């Protein structure tokens, strides 16, 4: 079936709209957030907090940042493919187009935390321009 855009109509309620409103429908995180996220000395603490525990309880400050990262639109959005259940994952990106293939990327992980940390660094780079060490 031919691919078609997910962002199709505007006169109705659907969950997709929620984040389009929040993020203005822009494609890249940097564009969405550069005027809203203010870098501060506390950043180092957020990075350390995430690295230590990427999934679960977070400080309100880290949660706000993760909401930005994880709520981006579906176009080129990072996701994982399960290669071996609970043991091996492959990085991928969704297309944002219903029917269009998820793009597999040449990067695999043996833990979910490693995958989260990798994507966090990618998103941090897009947001701030800073490259975090692995």
């Amino acid at each position, binding site marked *: *079936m031919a691919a078609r855009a997910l962002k199709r109509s505007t006169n109705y309620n659907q969950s997709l709209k929620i984040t389009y409103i929040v993020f203005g429908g822009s494609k890249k995180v940097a564009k969405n957030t550069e005027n809203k996220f203010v870098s501060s000395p506390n950043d180092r603490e957020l990075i350390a907090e995430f690295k230590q525990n990427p999934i679960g*309880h977070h400080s309100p400050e880290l949660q706000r940042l993760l909401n930005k990262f994880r709520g*981006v639109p579906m176009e080129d959005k990072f996701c*994982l*493919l399960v290669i071996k*259940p609970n043991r091996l*994952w492959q990085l991928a990106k969704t297309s944002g187009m219903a029917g269009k293939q998820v793009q597999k990327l040449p990067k695999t992980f043996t833990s*979910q935390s490693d995958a989260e940390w990798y994507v966090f660094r990618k998103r941090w780079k897009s947001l701030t321009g800073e490259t975090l060490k692995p």
Partner: protein
Amino acid sequence: MTMKITAYADRTSVAPEETINFMVNCRASNFKADFVKLICGDLNPDGPGYKERPIKTKANGTYPGRRQVIHSGSFIQLDESEHFNSLENFTLQAFIWPTLPENGQQTIIGNWSHENSNGAYLSVGGQNRGLTLTLGFGKGKLEEFATGKNLLPRNWYFVSATYDAKTKSVSLTQEALHNHAKINDSTKKKYKVRNRGMKNCKRVATIGAKFLKFDKNRTVCQNHFNGKIDSPAIASRALNSMEIEQLKNRSNQSLMSTNVLAAWDFSKNIKSINVLDVSGNRLNGQLVNMPARGMTGWNWDGDEMNWSHAPNQYGAIHFHDDDVHDAGWEVDVTLKIPKNLKSGLYAARLRCGNNPEEEDYVPFAVLPPKGKATAKICFLLPTASYMAYANEHMGTDSPIAQLLGGRLVEHQHQDLYRNEHREYGPSCYDTHTDGSGVCYSSRLRPILNMRPKYKSWLGGKGSTLWQFNADTHIINWLEAMKYDYDVITDEELHYEGVECLDRYKVVLSSSHPEYHSKEMWDAMATYQDRGGRLMYLGANGWYWRIAFHEQADGIIEVRRAEGGIRGWEAQTGEYYHSFTGEYGGLWRRNGRAPQKIVGSGFTAQGFDISSFYTRKPDSFKKPVKWIMSGVGPDEKIGDFGLVGGGAAGLELDRADVALGTHPNAYVLASSEDHTDLYLVVCEELLINYPGLGGQENHLVRADLVFYETNNGGGVFSTSSIAWPGSLSHNSYKNNVSKITKNVLDRFVKDGPIID
């Protein structure tokens, strides 16, 4: 992503000596069919491990593979008639509410022979096209006439087209019924036709799409219409403007009885798949792929919300290019259930190779013999809830999936396949191509997320299980603890009523029995009232009201009405089930909050990590302290597990006497310390306010509840979807398993629950 084999069955439950058919799409030259008893579908190596037990049947064997495809998109197929074959001069007209007029050509009414390119079809769609009439004179000779005025999405128009073969003239009327200032998209146009002689030939008349071909027993269409069509009609000559107006208003009986070939009234028989022609010619039709009925029509004025009170304002049918009801595949494998096969959860295991993409499972329940029980315990497989979630696309489509899950979405090969093969149809959590909500879902198609070995993005960190595969942890526990049990499904409950439960001492629910028809609800309530005992091993149960179609097999309806956690929202005026006329939406808004039937009801949800319960004072009271036998007073309950790492997680229910919890119910334990991704459900929010997350809000909790019902019955509710994922921890030696066993052992015994 290619799955080389996909399949479905004609039923989800089958009794000994009955047959079940499997329809298989296979890209290899042959496939192997085996049958297995499913025990644990969880592939997580940190859990009890995947378990299935092969069974020998006469149907085991190798079968030739063949490709079978799904032709999605709804339409009305009109009964064959010489009237359609011989139609040469005509008027076609309807009220339309297009939802994607900017997309390609979409047919409102067609009378077409694709093979002969002969006939006519009236369409909308495409940039700068507007209403378009296409005439086919055979041998590829087509002529198109378009108003050239775009239509606005989600606005009503009256449209008509006339063709007079003798004068070789066409007229088009595009009349906007909206009142937008400075938008003039109404027009009337006339054209001359070059060709002559639309020969009599066999045509297929359709509404909502254009005929393409027959594929074995199925009619295949193209140019599917997205949007509503109301009051379509065909006259057997080119009507003048006044007559068109009279037919539009159905005001000229003389015209209706002479020159009107067909005038369909969709407001009649809304519950049916039949469509009636009220002209007297009886050119009736049938829905294909179940477009939505009971939808507000062009003349709906907002005074009435219930279509059965004012059916004349509900004369619209909403068509979608991705509707699917019955895939209509041919049967490849037929299994007659052996006479002595024990009731349980089974599956056809279909393989055409050794890779995951070369394997599919089609689960089904083997029932006890008709009218009998073969155990004291019954597991109720929630097939209606599985249908509601069938083939959901939120993981690939919705930006909120990662927000809800608090992590990257994990996809399986089935998810990628579903993403690329939208013809497999959406779930009741998805929206259609045009953004409207999916209110029907069918099991007569491969349901690729109702499979053992499947992980769902909704399932919490860890095993990441949701619905069907999560429920195999209950089966696994019953097997490991050596309980004897039968399995029945929601459809037995719906169609047979309480009788199918009465045979059992105890009924176990699934982890997530969310969708119930009135018949199902009544049967369960009656069972409890007669002394039946229910163990509700999940949460978010008895939440949405659904309806089964009275005429069509294997399809449910849900209207996301005025409350609840919703993937979409029904449009105002469209809250009533078309299948039954019942007010849809939450059971809570139908006067039956879940607390009334299971003591607890949906209160919060989150999908990252799960938490634990701590004991409450009620658990130490003498009448019920046996429930916690072997559990220390300060022991955390379920601070372990495969679904989110705890027994309290994903969706949570709470006791609330104001909503119907039995006033004497015991709240034995409550969960705590949920993350802030757990948020209070929206039906609790009259005024939204800060502090709705799990770290702050007291409504974010699961309550472990027990209460007695009449005649010696009782209900035990865990109020958490994650509960079954903790049962197998530490080789079943844990407090979640212990509490579950304490209750089940007491429930299954004769005599009162409380001495």
